[in-house]
């Protein structure tokens, strides 16, 4: 079991983080906005954490990071007094970074969202792709982001010999809270307004729903989530650079949502978990003893072909995604009538 966690700890954490990212793209989509800006906010969040943890907060006295914390950061660290013995960095500060990253992305999203959300459909998608590209060029050229090499040696809030799986202590509650938030949102007045806008903007406006307010709100919620996720990812990856959150990532995250299901909160989560694990599963399947050579070499060399084919077939056979509100309902009805009732209400 230890061996299993050592090998797959990082993969599991990465699956959870990708699921959060998928949720962050799902939020604007809930209000009918095809925004691909999530990786941009993800990158900003990561840079916030990387810069703060390597240049501003520094670290705990007596660790290899040397410099004592100043009074302010000590106070911040004390908010969440759980620092595992031997860790180079207090977990509390990671949470603070996530907060700052999320806040910054939220403010930026308001500024960008107000003009950008006048665009619709593919035009908004294009504008958000441009936003991601602008951020990438900025990151390559600003001195504080470390150019192309980026920032490395981001301190770990766990002891030297701990595996990446330790991050589950932050990541699991983070995904659970995010999922719960979106789940509740779908059942709230605001969430229903989002969905109404998605299904028919004209009708929704006629009913008195303010389209600009709700679109920007959904966009900002997604940005905050992506920013927090980025801040956490920077610690998990141990390094951050301009290749995080590029156009490729935008498309990948969109695939999570499309394959998983774009109309219910569970869809993006399933999509993010499954599509992140898939290439690694194929890697392992290729290594199984006793497979014919051609099959195992196809599985290892062609695993990305299989990945692409699965996405293509997924879209063909599950145009609404694997998880749809209808399927959830049907499933909920059969075992327990009470759950079904909840799903309907």
């Amino acid at each position, binding site marked *: 079991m230890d061996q299993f966690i050592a090998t797959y700890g990082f993969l599991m954490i990465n699956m959870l983080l990708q699921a959060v990212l998928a949720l962050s793209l799902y939020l604007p989509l809930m209000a009918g906005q095809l925004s691909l800006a999530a990786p941009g906010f993800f990158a900003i969040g990561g840079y916030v954490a990387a810069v703060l943890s390597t240049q501003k907060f520094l670290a705990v006295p007596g660790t290899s990071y040397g410099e004592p914390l100043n009074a302010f950061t000590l106070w911040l660290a004390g908010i969440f007094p759980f620092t595992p013995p031997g860790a180079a960095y207090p977990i509390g500060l990671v949470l603070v970074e996530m907060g700052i990253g999320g806040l910054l992305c939220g403010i930026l999203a308001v500024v960008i969202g107000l003009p950008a959300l006048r665009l619709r459909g593919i035009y908004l998608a294009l504008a958000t792709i441009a936003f991601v590209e602008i951020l990438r060029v900025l990151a390559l050229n600003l001195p504080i982001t470390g150019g*192309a090499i980026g920032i490395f040696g981001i301190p770990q809030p766990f002891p030297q010999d701990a*595996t990446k799986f330790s991050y589950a202590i932050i990541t699991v509650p983070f995904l659970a809270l995010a999922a719960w938030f979106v789940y509740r949102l779908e059942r709230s007045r605001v969430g229903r307004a989002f969905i109404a806008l998605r299904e028919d903007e004209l009708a929704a406006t006629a009913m008195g729903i303010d389209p600009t307010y709700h679109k920007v709100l959904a966009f900002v919620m997604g940005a905050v989530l992506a920013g927090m996720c980025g801040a956490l990812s920077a610690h998990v990856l141990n*390094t951050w650079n301009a*290749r995080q959150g590029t156009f490729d990532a935008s498309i990948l995250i969109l695939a999570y949502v499309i394959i998983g299901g774009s109309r219910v909160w569970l869809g993006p989560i399933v999509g993010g978990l499954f599509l992140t694990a898939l290439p690694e599963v194929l890697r392992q399947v290729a290594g199984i003893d006793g497979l014919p050579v051609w099959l195992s070499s196809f599985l290892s060399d062609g695993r990305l072909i299989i990945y692409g084919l699965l996405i293509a077939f997924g879209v063909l056979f599950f145009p609404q995604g694997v998880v749809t509100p209808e399927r959830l309902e049907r499933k909920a009805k059969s075992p327990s009538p009470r759950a079904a009732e909840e799903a309907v209400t």
Partner: protein
Amino acid sequence: MSRRLLSFAVLAALLLTVSISAAQDAEPVRIGIAVAQTSNVALFGQEQVIGAQIASDYYNEQGGINGRPIELVFQDTAGDEAGAINAFQTLIADNVVGIVGPTLSQQAFAADPIAEQAGVPIIAPSNTARGIPEIGAYIARVSAPVAVVAPNAVRAALDINPDIARVAVFYAQNDAFATSETGTFQETVTALGLELLPVQQFQTTDTDFTTQITNVLPQNPDLVIVSGLAADGGNLIRQLRELGYEGLIIGGNGLNTANVFPVCQAFCDGVLVAQAYSVSYESEINTIFRDIYTEQQEKNPPQFSAQAFTAVQVFVEALIELDNTVGLDTLDLAASRTQLNETLLSLEYDTPLGPLSFTPDGEINQGTFYVARIEMNDDGQTGQFAFVASIETEPAAEVEATPEATPGS
């Protein structure tokens, strides 16, 4: 989801069978190769795969590790950090004694700490950023950093024309490598007491460089240094010549490729390029490597393949030494990984790159660097890198003078 669980279960079974088969005789020594076989970095990764494969075939023919064959285990890192971490984790669980990889420095900053924690020696075949060996005790590299390779071209240019006084520097502002390389070139020029004319910037997507060239040409530069990629750099060189510049030109590492020949054609002739590997380097091992590569691929081996070959060679020679002194059979996996790391840092190697050794940190001490001159054939489309000079360096003096890991410089 259940498919994932199933394959994990199958993997666990696989691990069991691997550990059972460990008792057999002449069991191969497994070396992991984690490079970018897919993604937009695959161009480099594929060359590294070829280099590593040639090395393992060659050393297995020579008898492997005192009779035990070498088995390379390939895991694709793709071009991102998560991919590199996953590939490293898979290889570590797959009982390799050491890993060659990853392709990019950025990937190394994410994945190397994993290997460091697991106590698995890493040899980076192509990480040139500052701060790579400093990641940990188990991390070494056979790729000399930019700051060490680039200045050699300037020294070679001064050998050819000692009267050089004014230097014009051009660089592609949107290319990461060019940006860091030009910093090194400018420092070298200033350190040698030459006059640095105002630095000119361009984009890798540019095709017209008249503005930049006319900015500096009236100031009569004796040497022009270009850091860019093949297409833009080649065009810049062509336009420099067309506008009447006749002095020496140095191309950065981005021009260290045959792809530049069709771009500047006859105008490429005479451009100097500093190299960490030279096809023309005469030694027994480089002749062997070059002959096998040329036979397989029908072209001259590039630097990436030579460095990957060297990385595998370092592991093989260190394993043989370890087997001779301690005996590999007497060590369990963890101990053989640790002792392999200590052994490989202490030895000296004769490689296709020339003689090399490591600092205790794991930084490469490459004895020789090369400067080549582009010589174009009469058809104006093809040419070759002709060997100009090999430059003996003081062991890693420049690297140790700047031990602080400044990102992005």
